[in-house]
């Protein structure tokens, strides 16, 4: 740890340090009542102190848990820090979860205290109160509509602060003493993983395991007190917590809370964050908006945009990476920055972004390149709730679209023979709360955390994650087969809506394709191709041709990756119907259920592998109006060109 | 006795002058009634009509031919105004239309002088501006022959307009438009035609006024100011009433002359430039809706 932060091993200590060292600097802002209401670090600390006194007076004790159910609000962060001051453990819960989903965490952690944002959250808690006997006190931030609530559990945040003020007057040194008796190994917070399988698990982090990685990553990106971040993702997600809490406490930068979920874009433009995080879907939506709004622009602007985006595509990334670029291109890029990129960054609120991160799922290379090409330093990282986010981070100048970057200093990585990524780092969680069985499974005796993610190191030592281990198979020749990786690569093309790849224990990879009816429809319209709908489009030779090109580009990419070069897609067909969650082909979150599809369309799969050029299907079709009919046709099967793996080329 | 006669002489002179004011005011009322436009350019139209006519006759045209051609020009002007100025401004606030007619005033003033030059012209219609002999002989009252003629012309014009409005199909359509634009549209009257017609009629009225005023004051730029004389008449009589224009004109004309003669000397004279306005204003303070206007109830 640097000199300044020596001995500051807990968040409350850090907070008090900032209150002393930069008391007048903004700690947290919130757009409220039309302006950015600001708490300085000193005010923030004072608020936390009063809140802590109040909570203590209400009986919150060291080691007990407090649930926090709120959007990003200054008082949420105050309550969180206040609990930490007392040695109590904040447990942020997803504010958009339904009441029933909150029952388990509250029972599991025997939560007695809860901080709720508003009437809506209070209502949820009151609803589950009979099931959660431990829950005794509920504090609410926004008193609107709460006038007629007479439940004894309820108390307004203001009232809590009032109590805190009295308690503080009685014993002014109480909070300082409590803070002093905390240590880095104490539990700092608990995050419940969403739990796609089975019950949620409470991931327990100590102060040390959150502060360590936060500090390392902040150093890596040279973050400081002048930085600003917009806190707009759910606070219950560890990433939000790290970016808008842990790192802020480490560096002293300013956290900004938007006015409401609807105004995030406007608020972002106003605040102009310097440090930014967005999952790929947010970036994708943003790009879609940019494209749509550009389509309405005048001819001149569209022309400028196209021209200069070409330039940016060519050299923007290289310029950002500090690589040599011809003077002419540099000049063009400068011009483009003046009329297109600069204004574009400005209108999407990213003018001041020094460092932006994306993570969570695979990001499309075009999407990723777009942001980098217009001069936004977007990078990728890899991490999870259990690892306090920072495992791999792409350092400046080593940014790639398809890797997660090398390990952060202090993190050890290793791949099992099954290609599972193992991690040992100071940021590892202590345990799953009250779930030693799960803890044992995830964390082996040597301290390696089993991520369940499969991947490998690329030539530059960057980690490349391809899929979940349980989904990764092997081709007959032993090559790694990562269906989701291939499918994602295909889905990055706008024309392809869904893809299902087969290949486990087979000699080659084949794929089902679902075209994107909108994108292909547009494409068809531009070419004056009349069509009647998805089924019609999906049978067109032109469309097959288009899809084949996409697949071949994927194959070309794959050929450059020795580990999986052999899993290129040899044959494909375009499905006659769109995959539907209603038909059990997709999960509710729109993930393909590969096994189910493989069984349901067994004939098609065998036809692909049998080398046929067409296959007859007869299927029940459900129309939009609810009627059903039968569909019968011959589906075409096409071959795609495969490329000689680069490694073997070099070898040869 | 002579004072009484003098009073009546002044009164009659005022009333007759009032008729002339009324004539100009009539043009305003026509257009306002049909299109809701307060046509500030009416004065410029008077000037334009008179100047066109006088320039044609000075070039040796026959009186009637010149009259017909001038009328045609005024009708054309009405149509062009409707097309170029009013149609694009349909549904705009009235104040906007008013300001547009101020613009139109400038255009007309510039245009007429650009075409015909800016030197003043005399105009003769063959009726001498001399006192009626029999009147002055019998009662020693001096009333101009021309003034009487003007009064007859104005009266005739009003009668013609009344017939036009009440007896002809177009006239009835015009009234329908004035009452409710939407309703008029609904019964299938093409608003644009109506407007063009009414502007043409206003042009005709302007021509008549221009001729009469031209004889009195000469055809020169100052003729545009007669419009300013008509404005108090409008305030007094209401913007929508032909009757109001006549009565208002008479009141203004009479009071102005009387004031000039009986009050003027005490304040140094020259009060006719503003007296009419003050009369109108004072009147307005007591009856904001004008002489013949309807009381407006603000519905909320």
């Amino acid at each position, binding site marked *: 740890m640097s000199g300044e932060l020596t001995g500051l091993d807990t968040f409350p200590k850090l907070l008090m340090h900032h209150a002393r060292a930069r008391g007048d600097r903004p700690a947290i802002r919130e757009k409220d*009542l*039309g302006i950015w209401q600001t708490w300085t670090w000193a005010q923030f600390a004072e608020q936390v102190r009063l809140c802590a006194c109040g909570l203590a007076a209400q009986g919150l004790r060291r080691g007990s848990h407090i649930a926090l159910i709120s959007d990003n609000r200054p008082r949420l962060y105050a309550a969180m820090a206040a609990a930490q001051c007392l040695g109590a453990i904040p447990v942020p819960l997803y504010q958009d979860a339904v009441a029933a989903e909150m029952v388990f965490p509250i029972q599991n952690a025997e939560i007695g205290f809860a901080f709720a944002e508003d009437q809506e959250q209070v209502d949820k808690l009151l609803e589950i109160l009979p099931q959660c006997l431990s829950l005794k006190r509920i504090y609410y931030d926004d008193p*609107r*509509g709460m*006038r*007629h609530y007479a439940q004894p559990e309820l108390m307004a945040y203001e009232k809590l602060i009032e109590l805190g003020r009295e308690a503080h007057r009685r014993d002014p040194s109480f909070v300082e003493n409590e803070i002093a008796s905390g240590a880095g190994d104490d539990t700092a917070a608990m995050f419940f993983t969403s739990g796609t399988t089975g019950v949620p698990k409470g991931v327990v982090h100590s102060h040390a395991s959150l502060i360590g990685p936060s500090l390392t990553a902040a150093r890596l990106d040279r973050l400081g007190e002048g930085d600003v971040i917009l806190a707009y993702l759910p606070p219950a997600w560890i990433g939000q917590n790290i970016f808008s809490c842990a790192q802020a406490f480490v560096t002293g930068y300013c956290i900004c809370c938007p006015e*409401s979920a609807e105004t995030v874009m*406007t608020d972002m433009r106003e605040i102009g964050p310097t440090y930014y995080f967005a999952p790929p879907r947010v970036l994708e939506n943003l790009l879609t908006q940019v494209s749509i709004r550009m389509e309405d622009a005048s001819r001149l602007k569209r022309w400028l945009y196209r021209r200069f985006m070409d330039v940016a595509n060519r050299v923007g990334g290289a310029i950002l990476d500090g690589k040599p670029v011809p003077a002419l291109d540099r000049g063009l890029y400068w011009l483009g920055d003046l009329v297109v990129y600069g204004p574009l960054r400005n209108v999407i609120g990213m003018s001041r972004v020094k460092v932006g991160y994306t993570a969570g799922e695979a990001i499309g290379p075009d999407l990723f390149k777009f942001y980098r090409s217009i001069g936004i330093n977007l990078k990728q990282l890899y991490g999870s709730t259990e690892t306090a986010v920072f495992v791999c981070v792409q350092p400046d100048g080593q940014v790639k679209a398809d890797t997660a970057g090398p390990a952060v200093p202090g993190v050890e990585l290793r791949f099992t023979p099954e290609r599972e990524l193992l991690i040992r780092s100071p940021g590892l969680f202590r345990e799953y709360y009250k779930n030693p069985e799960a803890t044992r499974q995830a964390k082996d005796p040597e301290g390696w955390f089993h991520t369940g993610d499969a991947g490998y190191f690329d030539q530059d030592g960057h980690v490349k994650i391809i899929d979940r281990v349980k989904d990764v198979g092997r081709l007959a020749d032993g090559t790694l087969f990562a269906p989701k990786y291939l499918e994602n690569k295909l889905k990055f093309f706008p024309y392809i809506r869904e893809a299902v790849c087969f290949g486990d224990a087979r000699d080659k990879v084949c794929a089902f394709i679902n075209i994107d009816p909108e994108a292909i429809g547009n494409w068809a319209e531009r070419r004056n191709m009349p069509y009647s709908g998805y089924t019609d489009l999906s049978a067109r030779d032109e469309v097959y041709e288009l899809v084949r090109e996409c697949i071949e580009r994927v194959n070309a990419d794959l050929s450059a990756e020795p580990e999986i070069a052999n899993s290129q897609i040899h044959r494909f067909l375009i499905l006659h119907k769109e995959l539907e969650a209603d038909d059990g082909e997709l999960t509710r979150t729109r993930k393909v259920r590969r096994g189910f599809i493989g069984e349901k369309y067994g004939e098609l799969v065998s036809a692909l592998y049998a080398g046929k050029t067409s296959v007859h299907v007869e299927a029940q079709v459900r129309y939009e109006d609810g009627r059903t009919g039968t569909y019968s046709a011959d589906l075409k099967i096409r071959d795609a060109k495969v490329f000689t793996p680069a490694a073997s080329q070099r070898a040869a | 006795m002579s004072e009484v006669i003098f009073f009546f002489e002044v009164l009659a002179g005022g009333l007759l002058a009032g008729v002339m004011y009324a004539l100009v005011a009539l043009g305003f009322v026509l257009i306002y009634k049909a299109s809701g436009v307060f046509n500030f350019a009416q004065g410029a139209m008077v000037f334009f009509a008179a100047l066109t006519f006088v320039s044609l006759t000075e070039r040796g045209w026959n009186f009637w031919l010149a009259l017909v051609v001038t009328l045609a020009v005024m009708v054309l002007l009405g149509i062009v105004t409707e097309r170029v100025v009013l149609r694009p401004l349909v549904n705009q606030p009235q104040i906007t239309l008013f300001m547009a007619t101020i613009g139109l005033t400038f255009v007309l003033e510039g245009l007429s002088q650009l075409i015909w030059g800016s030197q003043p012209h005399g105009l003769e219609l063959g009726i001498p501006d001399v006192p009626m002999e029999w009147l002055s002989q019998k009662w020693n009252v001096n009333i101009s022959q021309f003034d009487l003629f003007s009064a007859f012309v104005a009266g005739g014009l009003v009668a013609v307009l009344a017939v036009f409005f009440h007896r002809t199909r177009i006239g009835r359509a015009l009234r329908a438009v004035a009452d409710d634009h939407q309703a008029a549209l609904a019964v299938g009257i093409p608003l644009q035609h109506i407007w063009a017609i009414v502007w043409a009629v206003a042009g005709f009225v302007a021509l008549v006024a221009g001729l009469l005023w031209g004889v009195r004051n000469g055809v020169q730029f100052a003729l545009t100011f007669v419009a300013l004389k008509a404005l108090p008449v409008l305030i007094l009589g209401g913007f929508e009433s032909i009757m109001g224009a006549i009565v208002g004109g008479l009141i203004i004309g009479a009071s102005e002359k009387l004031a000039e003669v009986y009050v003027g000397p005490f304040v140094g004279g020259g009060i006719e430039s503003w007296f009419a306005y003050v009369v109108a204003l004072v009147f307005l303070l007591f009856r904001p809706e004008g002489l013949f206007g309807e009381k407006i*109830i603000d519905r*909320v």
Partner: protein
Amino acid sequence: MSAARRAGDVILSVQDVSLAFGGVRALQEVSFDVCEHEIRAIIGPNGAGKSSMLNVLNGVYHPQQGKIRLRNKEFADMDSHQAADLGIARTFQNIALFKGMSVLDNLMTGRNLKMRCNFLQQALWLGPAKREELEHRRAVEEIIDFLEIQHIRKTPVGRLPYGLQKRVELGRALAAEPAVLLLDEPMAGMNLEEKRDMCRFILDVNDHYGTTIVLIEHDMGVVMDISDRVVVLDYGRKIADGSPDEVRGNQSVVDAYLGVAH
């Protein structure tokens, strides 16, 4: 829900008010009272005199006969400025917002009676004028927050859709912190969702600020749900007065709504 609300003493009462325009008798000897904190509805078929009644209440129309009593003051008639001064605010059936101004400015005008600085101080933007302006801005922001119109704060009202304009108008009336709020067909021309929102806001206003609300509405259903007591007018006369349930059962009300001849 209305049972739980605390209704206070009579705050406003109307005694034998008659109003005529020329020969048309808009109101005939209408009397009723309004209690503090209640939601009082005036309903009736078209042309029943509802709007006239409201206009009498805030001094836009002057009744020929009768008295209005606000708290302890009695008026034969009052002008609208006086009504505003006494804490009566209103909205209009056909939105009467200031079209050329932003939402924020519209709401700020609602506070004009609370502003004390003179125009010279304002012209110089001196300490007190600036301070006053900013204080009131804050108060108005509370209302913006309350009505959930943050995103249109600086939009000129002319550009807003109808439903939002109605909400802004409610905001302007609220900005005056009225004791009595008159709402002239607050839900006219709205779709179902907008109506539901408006109902919620009316109830919230009543609940949160304790404002006494007098609303007239043409659509009976909505009113019955949210009001404590209802006056029914027909042809300028009061034909019923009581709780929504009482009124609903009243035969003359049913007749009036069904158009039975008198």
